[in-house]
């Protein structure tokens, strides 16, 4: 029953898989013990939980305003549902890794 309920809760949740195999790489020296092996690979602890703060109430600016803080060649992750179009700077996401957001009525997690 619980499983079924969660299925429903999860149907609309969305993750942008944006793997670079890169996150937290400046922190190798602090690598701690791993907790568990999943699918043959250890889960390595490198930082305390929430040491990198996810963004929960994202604010957006117009493209014109964006030009003031963006480099033309700056990498972005972009999503568009046909009505609303959003870009997320990867240089910024380096410091947050997760944005809990919505596109239209759909809850999405933008991850990097």
């Amino acid at each position, binding site marked *: 029953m619980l499983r079924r309920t969660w299925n*429903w*809760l*999860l*149907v*609309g*949740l*969305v*993750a*942008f*898989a*944006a*793997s*670079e*195999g*890169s*996150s*937290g790489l*400046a*922190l*190798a020296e602090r*690598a701690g013990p791993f907790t568990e092996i*999943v699918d043959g690979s250890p*889960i*390595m*602890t*490198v930082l*305390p*939980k*929430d040491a*990198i*703060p*996810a963004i929960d109430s*994202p*604010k*957006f600016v117009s*493209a014109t305003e964006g030009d003031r*803080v963006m*480099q*033309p*060649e700056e*990498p*972005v992750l*972009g999503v*568009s549902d*046909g009505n*609303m179009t959003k*870009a*997320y*700077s990867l240089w*910024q*996401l*380096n*410091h947050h890794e*997760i*944005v*809990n957001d919505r*596109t239209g009525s759909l*809850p999405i*997690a933008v*991850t990097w």
Partner: protein
Amino acid sequence: MQQGKPITFGVSGRLWKDALVMYDRETGSLWSHVTGGAIVGPLKGQTLTPYPASHTTWKQWRRLHPDTLLLSKQTALGVKGTHNAYQGYFDDPERLGIFGTRNPDTVLPGKEFVLGFSLGNTHVAYPYRDLNRQPLVQDVVSGEPILVTFSAKEATAVAFSRRVGERVLEFSKVREAGGDLVMDDQQTGSTWQALTGTAIQGTLSGSRLHQLPATRAFWFAWKGFYPQTRLWRASR
């Protein structure tokens, strides 16, 4: 998604297969952001639905979507993210992950970018170096006719389904027109923006190809997650 409250994610501080592990604040389960699956905790085995996104440059995205919004960089402490904190990592072909992962398949350099996605039980990878030679790929993955388009200038790769209504479209090769990368379909002769999959001219004008959830990944990471991945190569 139509019932219940969405769950929200935080950064667990852990890595699995050299990539971000998220936790959900409702149950504390751990999730891989590459597979979208919960790997530890009460929700283990559940998966999130992937949503299509494009990796490109601000300049390119803005040109394709003049009305785009941008996640604000303003914080209480000023503007954040004015440079790539991981530039050194991106530039070093020898560094694979933070613990020195071995390239699981040296058919490609570990740090080669690929566009990777999964359809059904099939995982596929399209290397940027091959897309550079062949910027339009028409393929069939898990029975689905798909299309991969590539802009060499912006190093942007996007995947679409080639099904539009009842039709399965075939495309001519990409060309530049008015600063846009475009292609024509052979069935109706309509012209499409290659990177957005939007028809801009012809009888299908206004139609959009269904974009497939795909990610840009380093080859070593993609192969690490999906050892059985199919690897597409451009013909010589």
